[in-house]
């Protein structure tokens, strides 16, 4: 058995959710990762804000050590959905999540699961670079210090910054404020900060939307590089970005109910990125990707 699946097997006494047809490797390049290693599973996930349904009945699998992109028009709930994956939606007053999200075979919404523990395993990088108004070192050390780590912080900070491809640029000014860096550097600092907590899934909510093209390129290269160690789920407005970086792409759209004046996000389809971009099953996906709407 593939050694990478061992953690999932140990934690999961129940059988894995059945792998749907769309997950079966279609092309030759996927054959070596078979059988598909599912890291996170969403099953009939819906998110409500009070009476309003933001996302309805989303089910799909996130594969281990791959990049999954969530694309779709504004208001289709892709960011909302992303935030259900590490229970950040718990912090929004009035937000409720139904359905189940399974991480390594465990339901992260189970009663005995502490949302804080979920967020330590499933890290997050936000749309706007948001370093703390602290030094670069303290930014990276923030997460480990929350857990009481005191020894080995220097090595951890260095390793995290190296992993985020920022070390060479900041190694001589670790005591300077994180806010003194450029936007792209700040975002890589935020990635380093997330890595330092040692998660295995990293969620990225439009991580490049506030960055210039060169900084964007660096982050994209970094993401591709990180995918060997981490499972990455990225929300992006930029379809080219999804095409460039992701292994799989999920396309969401807005379901309009004119009678109730309701807009609800729904998953249209998810597949290998190549397939979504060249040979989508649903006409709505093709329409969005070719720019006919959205």
């Amino acid at each position: 058995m593939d050694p990478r699946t061992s953690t999932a097997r140990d934690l999961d006494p129940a059988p894995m959710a059945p792998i749907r047809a769309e997950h079966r490797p279609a092309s030759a390049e996927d054959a070596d990762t078979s059988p598909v290693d599912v890291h996170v599973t969403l099953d009939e996930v819906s998110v409500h804000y009070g009476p309003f349904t933001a996302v309805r009945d989303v089910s799909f699998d996130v594969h281990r050590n791959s990049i999954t992109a969530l694309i779709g028009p504004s208001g289709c709930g892709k960011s909302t959905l992303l935030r259900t994956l590490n229970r950040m939606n718990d912090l929004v007053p009035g937000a409720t999540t139904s359905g189940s999200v399974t991480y390594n075979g465990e339901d992260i919404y189970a009663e005995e699961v502490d949302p804080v523990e979920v967020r330590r395993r499933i890290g997050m990088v936000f749309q706007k670079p948001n370093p703390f108004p602290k030094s670069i070192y303290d930014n990276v050390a923030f997460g480990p210090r929350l857990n009481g780590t005191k020894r080995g912080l220097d090595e951890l900070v260095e390793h995290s910054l190296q992993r985020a491809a920022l070390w060479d640029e900041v190694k001589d000014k670790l005591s300077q404020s994180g806010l003194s860096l450029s936007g792209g550097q700040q975002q890589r600092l935020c990635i380093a900060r997330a890595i330092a907590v040692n998660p295995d899934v990293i969620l990225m909510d439009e991580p490049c939307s506030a960055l210039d093209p060169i900084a964007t390129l660096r982050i994209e290269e970094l993401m591709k590089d990180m995918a060997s160690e981490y499972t990455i789920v990225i929300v992006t407005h930029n379809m080219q970005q999804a095409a460039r970086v992701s292994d799989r792409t999920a396309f969401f759209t807005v379901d309009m109910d004119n009678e109730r004046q309701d807009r609800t996000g729904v998953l249209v389809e998810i597949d290998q990125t190549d397939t979504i971009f060249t040979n989508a099953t649903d006409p709505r996906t093709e329409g969005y990707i070719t720019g006919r709407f959205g």
Partner: protein
Amino acid sequence: MSVDTPVRPDPEAGDRPSLTVTTPNARRRALISRIMSGALFLAVMAAVTPLAILLWQTLSNGWGPFSWEFLTTIEPLSYRETGGGYLHGIVGTLYMTGVAALISVPLGLAAAVYLTERPKGRYASIVRFFTDVMTGVPSVFVGLAVYALLVSGSGGLGLGFGTLAGAASLAIIMLPIVVRSSEEMLRLVPGDLKQAAYGLGARQWQATFKVTLPAAAPGLTTGVILAVARGAGETAPLILTALGAREVVLRLTGAPQADIGLLMLDGFRQPFEGGIERAWAGGFTLILITLGLSIIARMIARRSQI
């Protein structure tokens, strides 16, 4: 027409009038603008004038009698005598303000954190209502309330006049200012930062103590210092709580305490040159204290990163 000779509109011949031709009401609009600017300038001057007069009065009258001796000696027994100083009042004012800050700052910060972390919490509206009301309560009444609760032996704790009673009344004056200014400052901390902390697995108290409060620290310090400056300048609540003294008092309870404001009140009420001179110097000292605190507050506020 060839592609490489762009058409240049001729300002004389074009169908649009030249830029030098203004619209018909332009002159009237410019005039109104000038009148309004002048009116606003006058309004600003009117607002600043009383402050300027006050500062000038205090400086011109207080500078003469103000001296090293004034800061380091106590008042002579008779108001007729010149010389001497307000050492006991300065000590009392700083002492009571310090104790009041020790009481009101932690309480006020805690209330402000509560109001920002649980803006719709069960007690949030009650806390907001009471801080608003407390800001408007006449300060002499605060003194009366503290007198009834702490000083008086019949119905109160019977602590008697003194430092603690005075500090308690000052703390009540300072508390709503600390709460309100701290709440504003904590609200300024970007939600992004809290989100980032939660995203890294912080618990609510960790996000508050390690991110929100440090990020707001310069602003919080400013608010606290301004509240302390306000407290240091109060006199009315001390009449019934500190009572006043004619010597340096270091006891927390059991002996009436002196205060610059109280000494000034006494000095001005006597028809003697020496007492009045010292009262002016006392006013000058108070302005130095509050002005100094305000300047420190502004300097810290400027270092704020949010």
